[in-house]
């Protein structure tokens, strides 16, 4: 659901200070503007790495630390011989710390482990899936990002007028609906029951790419856009309102500048920061949303890969994909924060 589809209610790493932009403001320093930025970036990167490291611990514990994965994989009545063999293969006989380090060491070197279901390296298995999901996310993002920025900004500019009120209700409804509900309803509406104009599943012939079935991409993309845009549009609106009510914009108005100049010269640059945040949020939520949406449309990406991995108790696949998606989240947030700081003159001076 556009919880930020299973996404974070906030995508950045620091807790938001109420009333201000969701960036940690630093006290003004007397040093030149360049080095504080690098310092800031450096700190952010370190923070990101720390969180990634903690995330890896959580993923590891959730999969290998809880219960006995060997038993889970082999099911009930696994024989002692087969359990022993699988445990050796997964290095489960060693202490937890060693297992963890082995796994992380592998990840760092690009060794994502071997899929238990397919008996193939995980990397080979997910190669095409990553491409497919990336394509889907980029197309959906290409639509939802400008859309959410446009809707949010316009609603803020025309606050409490017809458009804003209408959008407020529409975005509320769609933000509340779970993504797969949106997807299934679209399928019922356009593919199977009410109308029959679009296919209910995406069919990517083996060896081909998702661009070979453009018709089959319409509904998944539409679902993703509908799942993510309303949520982010609301955030954009809130940010835009804040910018429009901010001191410096008031100042510009008091100076007697025409409204258009106020908006373009003073409001917009400061709205860029939140905009970047919105872009990052969009992409992050999309990355989360594909997990369920790919299943609805039988789309062969990392979302359905994760789902199948969980269904098959294929621990290495689940671990690899979880780290991939989490890593993506963290990187996107990092980029958003850094870009925001760089782009917002006001904040830069406060570094």
């Amino acid at each position, binding site marked *: *659901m556009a*919880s930020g*589809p*299973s*996404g*974070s*209610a*906030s995508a950045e790493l*620091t*807790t*938001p*200070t*109420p*009333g*201000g932009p*969701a960036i940690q403001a630093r006290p003004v320093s007397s040093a030149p503007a360049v080095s504080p930025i690098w310092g800031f970036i450096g700190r952010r990167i370190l923070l990101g790495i*720390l*969180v*990634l490291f*903690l*995330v890896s611990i*959580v993923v590891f514990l*959730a*999969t*290998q630390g809880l*219960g006995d994965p060997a038993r*889970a994989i082999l099911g009930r009545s696994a024989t002692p011989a087969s359990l022993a063999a699988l445990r050796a293969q997964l290095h489960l006989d060693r202490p937890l710390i060693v297992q963890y380090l082995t796994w992380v060491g592998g990840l760092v070197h690009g060794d994502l482990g071997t899929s238990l279901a397919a008996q193939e390296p995980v990397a080979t298995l997910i190669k095409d899936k990553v491409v497919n999901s990336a394509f889907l996310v980029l197309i959906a993002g290409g639509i939802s990002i400008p859309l959410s920025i446009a809707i949010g900004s316009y609603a803020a500019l025309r606050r409490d007028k017809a458009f804003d009120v209408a959008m407020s209700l529409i975005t*509320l*409804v769609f*933000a*509340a*609906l*779970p*993504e*797969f*509900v949106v997807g*299934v*309803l679209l*399928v*019922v509406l356009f593919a*199977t*029951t009410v109308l029959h104009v679009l296919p*209910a599943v995406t069919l990517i012939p083996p060896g081909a790419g998702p661009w070979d079935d453009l018709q089959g991409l319409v509904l998944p993309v539409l679902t993703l856009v509908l799942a993510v845009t309303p949520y982010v549009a*609301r955030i954009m609106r*809130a*940010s835009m309102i804040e910018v429009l009510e901010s001191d410096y914009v008031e100042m510009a108005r008091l100076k007697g500048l025409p409204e258009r100049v106020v908006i373009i010269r003073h409001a917009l640059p400061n709205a860029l920061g939140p905009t970047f945040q919105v872009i990052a949020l969009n992409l992050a939520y999309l990355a989360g949303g594909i*997990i*369920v949406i790919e*299943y609805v449309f039988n789309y062969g990406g990392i979302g359905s890969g*994760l*789902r199948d*991995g*969980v*269904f098959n*108790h*294929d*621990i290495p696949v689940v671990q690899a994909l*979880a780290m991939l998606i*989490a890593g993506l*989240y963290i990187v996107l947030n990092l980029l958003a924060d850094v870009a925001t700081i760089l782009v917002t003159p006001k904040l830069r001076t406060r570094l």
Partner: protein
Amino acid sequence: MSVYNPLATNEPPLVQPRKPSGVLRNALTLGRTRVGLALLVLVAGVAVFGPLFAPHGPQDYLGLLPNKGPAPGALFGTDHIGQDVWSRFLDGGREILFLALASTILGLAIGIAIGLFAAYTKGATDDVLMRGMDVILAFPSIMLALVVIATLGPSYWLIILAVGLTNIPRAARVTRAAAQPIVERDFVGAAEAIGVPRWKILFGEILPNVLSPLMVEGSLRLTYSIGLIAAIAFLGFTPNPNGADWGVMIQENYIALSVQPWGVVLPVLAIALLTMATGMIGDGIARAAAGIDRLRSAE
């Protein structure tokens, strides 16, 4: 920016303590709250009381073939193995409602406690707690739930735990943000001076003053939890494979969607209306709270 509460309008945070009852009363004057409440009563009513009215058991064999449309004895036709869609629909809401409520309450309880504690304690403890929250927030919620299910398989307590876990950081953040200004207030300092124990301050002095944003957050959490629980069932992970559950119904009848839509349409509409309802109610409360703020700051 109210990133932590995106379903609300952008208003400055609450500084004045307010009566929750006042907020609620105001909320009910709004159209959207009323519609939401009506929908909630309708869907929750079906979920809770539905089983009493089901004409058949959820797994009864009716002598009919599977995936057939409405027929005598089967108001909305049969499902993928010939069971009565209508009866299964009436039975299918309880499980989702129960799981969603349980995980919401769990997440709220722990999240609020953490948020209060972090806001009050400040300093290093605050940082550590919030870092911990960041870690949980670094996953899409559904993924966290799936990762946990990967090893242990789906069971009721595990699902409640996993979904509750995803609720914790969000509730914590909201609580912390709302509590921070309160912590600075005189009456808190006074209580400390008297020697009131910390937990009493947290839950006796601070908590009552942050109830409004928490009510909003609560309805938000409930909305997300319902969606998440339904999604997990839809993906095929359920502790009760043959039981009636709206999310599972959508999944098992999806393949027959083109010939027998009711097995999917009924549960999916129910989930849609339910989440819309809780979302509207939350939005109504948020507006009411913000509205009171606007009034007060205008005085």
